[in-house]
């Protein structure tokens, strides 16, 4: 067997103790400066992120009221939650809200991007107008919507209905309207943001593809379905999945529109979401163990959504 190593290496000195060191030690020595620099962050990350997460997992298997010591109860919290009508109602509200918000804000965002995606001044002004709501979020905005949707004659929408001689609608006082009102509020705030994402995505599609398609006689509809949509799929997936995850975690609009001093969730829990229910269990009823279990159920659901995103992304790669 021939030795293929160059002569310079063959005559090299025998391996130094440094080379023989344990891989972990070698890693520590090699990256000591970097490790010293990241240690403060790592410590804070472990203390304030990893530890609470692990602690909440442990608490989800206990009966814990935040004052007395937790006592292990196994899977009781999970069993109780899965049989709890309030949890199921919160889950169904959240799922409806998530689907409605994600689909509508994505579709409207794409539509706006197609209409106002150009470089004309009017397009830029319109984009700024539609993007503004996603900047001006927060509790104040929800309060404004609460006033807009008031069932009374001084609620703006009902005042306008009155001008048209239409009967007032109990937007905030009827179980049927709770989730639709929340979806309207969310879509209004989200569609401008999605529009910007789609504008960026549309600009990444090379113009010569469209030119070639036009020369081949493709109609605008064919160009949209056969070129724009397939090439926009990564953006579409990103927008759809981030909208879904955001909708799953929404708290403020549910809480501020449908909670009062003696109740959260509104009429017959029509405005109860999973996160609001988590808050109710943990901070109004001191059932921290149950709230932790709910947090983990929520986490698993979001994990599944993310996995779906990755899977769809891979399908895209294959295509």
């Amino acid at each position, binding site marked *: 067997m021939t030795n293929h190593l160059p002569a310079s290496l063959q005559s090299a000195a025998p391996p130094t103790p440094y080379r023989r060191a344990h891989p972990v030690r070698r890693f520590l020595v090699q990256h000591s400066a970097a490790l010293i620099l990241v240690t403060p962050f790592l410590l804070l990350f472990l203390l304030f992120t990893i530890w609470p997460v692990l602690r909440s997992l442990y608490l989800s298997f206990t009966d814990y009221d935040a004052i007395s010591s937790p006592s292990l109860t196994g899977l009781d919290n999970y069993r109780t939650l899965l049989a709890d009508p309030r949890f199921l109602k919160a889950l169904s509200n959240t799922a409806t809200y998530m689907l409605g918000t994600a689909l509508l804000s994505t579709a409207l965002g794409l539509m706006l991007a197609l209409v106002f995606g150009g470089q004309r001044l009017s397009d830029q002004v319109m984009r700024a107008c539609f993007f503004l709501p996603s900047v001006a979020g927060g509790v104040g905005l929800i309060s404004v919507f609460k006033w807009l949707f*008031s069932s009374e*004659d*001084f609620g703006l929408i009902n005042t306008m209905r009155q001008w048209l001689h239409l009967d007032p609608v109990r937007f905030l006082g009827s*179980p049927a309207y709770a989730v639709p009102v929340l979806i309207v509020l969310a879509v209004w705030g989200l569609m401008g943001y999605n529009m910007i994402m789609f504008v960026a995505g549309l600009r990444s599609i090379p113009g010569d593809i469209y030119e070639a398609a036009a020369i081949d006689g493709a109609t605008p509809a064919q160009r949209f379905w056969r070129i724009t949509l397939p090439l926009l799929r990564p953006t579409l997936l990103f927008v759809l999945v981030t909208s879904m995850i955001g909708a799953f975690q929404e708290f403020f609009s549910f809480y501020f529109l449908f909670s009062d*001093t003696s109740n959260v969730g509104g*009429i017959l829990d029509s405005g109860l979401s999973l996160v609001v229910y988590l808050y109710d269990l943990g901070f109004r009823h001191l059932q921290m163990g149950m709230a932790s279990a709910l947090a983990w159920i929520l986490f698993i659901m979001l994990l599944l959504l993310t996995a779906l995103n990755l899977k769809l992304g891979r399908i895209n790669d294959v295509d």
Partner: protein
Amino acid sequence: MRTPLKALTLTALLASSLASAEKLTIWVVGDETTPKILQPAVDLYKKDHPGVTFEVRAVPGDQAFTKYLAALASRSGPDIITGYLSYGIEIGKKGGLINLQDKYPALVSSVRKTANKGILDSITSTDGSVYALPYDLTVQLLYYRKDLVKTPPRTWAELTGTLDTLKASGNKGLVQQWGNAGWVGFFPYLKQAGGNLYDAKCSQATINSAAGVTALNYYAQFYTKYKGPTDGWPDMEQGLENGDYAMGMTGNWSLQSIRSGRPKLAGKWGITMLPKGPAGKNTAFEGGSLIGIMSYTKVPDLAADFIRQLYSTRTTVAMIGGANALGTLWLPAGRQDLVTQVNLPADQKAILMRQLSDSDGPPNCPGWEQSGDAVQKAVQQVVFNGVSAKAALDDAAKTMNANLSKYGK
């Protein structure tokens, strides 16, 4: 040089340790006005005890429970807290508040003589423990537009009669703000009909009694027949000002805010007691807040002494006066005899006092905190889904009894 420096350091350390031993940290639930209401009590106490220092901080209502729990978990934070009525038994039973009945029985016994009975009953545990004392109170009242309702209703029949008259003339009827289409709204009617949430010994739920059914059927028609607004917290004052509503039901806070914030309503509005039900009672729901001492405090005796002073005539009157100067209405729950000091027109004050003498707070039965949602659901099932009052209340009673067993152990 060294010796004086050492002496100076030692003196400073001693002084700071003494000062910290004589410091009271108080967290009060509410907005930035609430510490100002307590300030006269702090000033008077400091006058008598110059060595004591105070730190008084407002805690927003929606964050209070969480902040108190965090303080308990870390065993640091306030020595004294104020909180909503449920906090006393809820936190106290878990060891978060000192049982005042055990540790300071004389203080509890003296407050019992002057406090609002309904509030006191609500915060006294079924085993006699008192983890906190009444701090302030709020009570429901019926507000009305004098130009739209000539004679305020005094009975259930008169109330629905007034609503019929208003409806016939094209006017809207009643807007309920506090407890709208929920258990707090239903509560007074239950009491006025002679019913109750639980029996006197908290051994079983009695909400599904005949009186309960009568009350819920009567209450539900405000929404089904008379189409009252069902939003969570409708703007009663705006409704009255616009003339959209002729009557409104909410807490006494609107007595002050209508006067200061609704000039268009000047001279056009009045208040009356809640209408009398079949049991001959005008009972209104009353809420409020309580004051307690955290179990981990290092200065329990000082905290108890400050609270003791809070109920003295001099301090209570000073606090009411301070609130009056701030343009707000503070009703001392521990000194109901001094509520007359509040800044209100004589006729309104007389009605407020009469309503206070026939008012009741939430029950003190184990598991009530966990059962409120079930009663809320029962009320809403009848109002929105047309479920029979008996069936809905039976369901609520089932949950209440289950929670009695679970939390009464």
